[in-house]
């Protein structure tokens, strides 16, 4: 019985840690681990039905800024099987691996996935940013 209780407590602790991590750690590794992506939304918190811009930061897995990335962004709602209402694109390189991404808009509440595909020095990899709006 005490063993069960301890296991349960550990599980609870782990759950809390993972929730905290999801809340504060806003960096996503690309699928093959080549890039690390983070973003800052111009609209914070993000609200539905408002078009706004993001600043994407792209780094290599070792933390060096990626300065020559070609970036494409596709978003969608897996549950509803549809994409974003807009077609966002990178409009400006801001230096230090940071890129301005314009035309972001979400039009429904729920789980969104924003796929950020980065190509730099011929290496392509995609990170998926999950958002609950």
């Amino acid at each position, binding site marked *: 019985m005490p063993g069960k209780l301890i296991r349960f407590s550990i599980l609870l602790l782990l759950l809390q840690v993972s929730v905290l991590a999801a809340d504060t750690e806003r960096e996503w590794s690309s699928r093959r681990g080549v890039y690390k992506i983070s973003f800052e939304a111009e609209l914070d918190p993000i609200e539905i*039905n408002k078009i706004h811009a993001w600043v994407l930061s792209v780094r290599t897995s070792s933390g060096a800024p990626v300065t020559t990335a070609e970036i494409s962004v596709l978003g969608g709602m897996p549950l509803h099987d549809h994409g974003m209402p807009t077609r966002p694109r990178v409009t400006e390189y801001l230096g230090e691996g940071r890129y301005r991404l*314009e035309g972001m808009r979400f*039009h*429904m509440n729920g789980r969104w996935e924003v796929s950020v595909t980065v190509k730099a020095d011929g290496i392509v990899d995609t990170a998926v940013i999950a958002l609950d709006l």
Partner: protein
Amino acid sequence: MSAARKKNGKTLVVVLAIAALAAGVWQIRPLSPAPWTDAEIEILRSLWIASLPPLAPDPTNAVADNPRAAKLGQQLFFDTRMSANGAVSCASCHQPARRFTDGLPKGQGISSSKRNTRSIVGVAYSPWLYWDGRKDSLWSQALAPLEDPNEHGSDRVKVVELVTQSPEYREEYKILFGAFDPAEDDAIDSALANVGKAIAAFERLLMPSPSRFDDYVAALLDGDEDAQAAALTTDEILGLQLFIGEASCTQCHNGPLLTNNEFHNTGVISFPGEVPDKGRVAGVREVLADPFNCSGIYSDNAAADCTELEYARTGSELIGAFRTPSLRNLENTEPYMHKGQFNTIAETLRHYNEALPAMIGHNEAKPLGLSSRQLRQIEAFLGSLAAPPAPQIL
């Protein structure tokens, strides 16, 4: 029968009587205290009319918020001379008494238009106009029916002549836009755009009034249980719970106007005898190519922020997708959907409850599996979004 059993029997009768009475009270008294979680209260607040932000300026229309232009726009809105047969005005289809709709499956001008007449109350908040979003501003939208052979059936030369030359409009036009000079480049098209801009200034004033639902949210946020009870019935509250919960209506019908003004394919069947309507996939192509769009030369601010147009999405996913309508003031606005396919709200709710595969594209909606009682409760709630007619116009 023993004394003990008799006593038990009596107790049972009393218990049943109390239960019946309680059930009766529960039926007539709204749920008290209100059954909402904090997260749900935030959703209700987001749907509340008091959460509607001030209307953003329209830099593409220099007279968008000019009362003089609105007054001219109102006159033009009701003027049947802007039609080929002298009998059709904007108000022929957008009838104020019917919340600016017409009660027909498809608008009826010179002849039958292609789609259902949408309400224009609160439409100034939408980045897109029409069911398929083929226009991106109120002023640009106002131009299209004038030359549509099925609607006003007029042409821009005649419309411009009326507005710039007739005694009742000539001076107003001159004050607002300067004297009309036919020798100028693009004189007719620029003046036509001005006609749209005056009509848009009028349409920007058409806003919904607070409904019983809004009174309920105000009372809920105030913690005033009596006012909550006065605002909504139990069935309406249960319908509201479904609306923001299990029925997923707020996926698209969100914000204070209960629309995201976006495009969704929800598998609505085609109009009898017609091939399925392509909807947004065609509309987005039209708006991008429209000389009267936000980034065109008739916009009053060349540097205007045309972000919505610039980042508009195209592609096959928009096949059969139509713009979400507002759910405020549904009464007296039937039939519903882009070609008036459904005569009643009940029929529309059954459509969403079943969510059958779409004829073209794919139906984004999923079957809800709600009972007929639950559907009636949602319908009851939708009735609470009715409000007094739009305020007296100018």
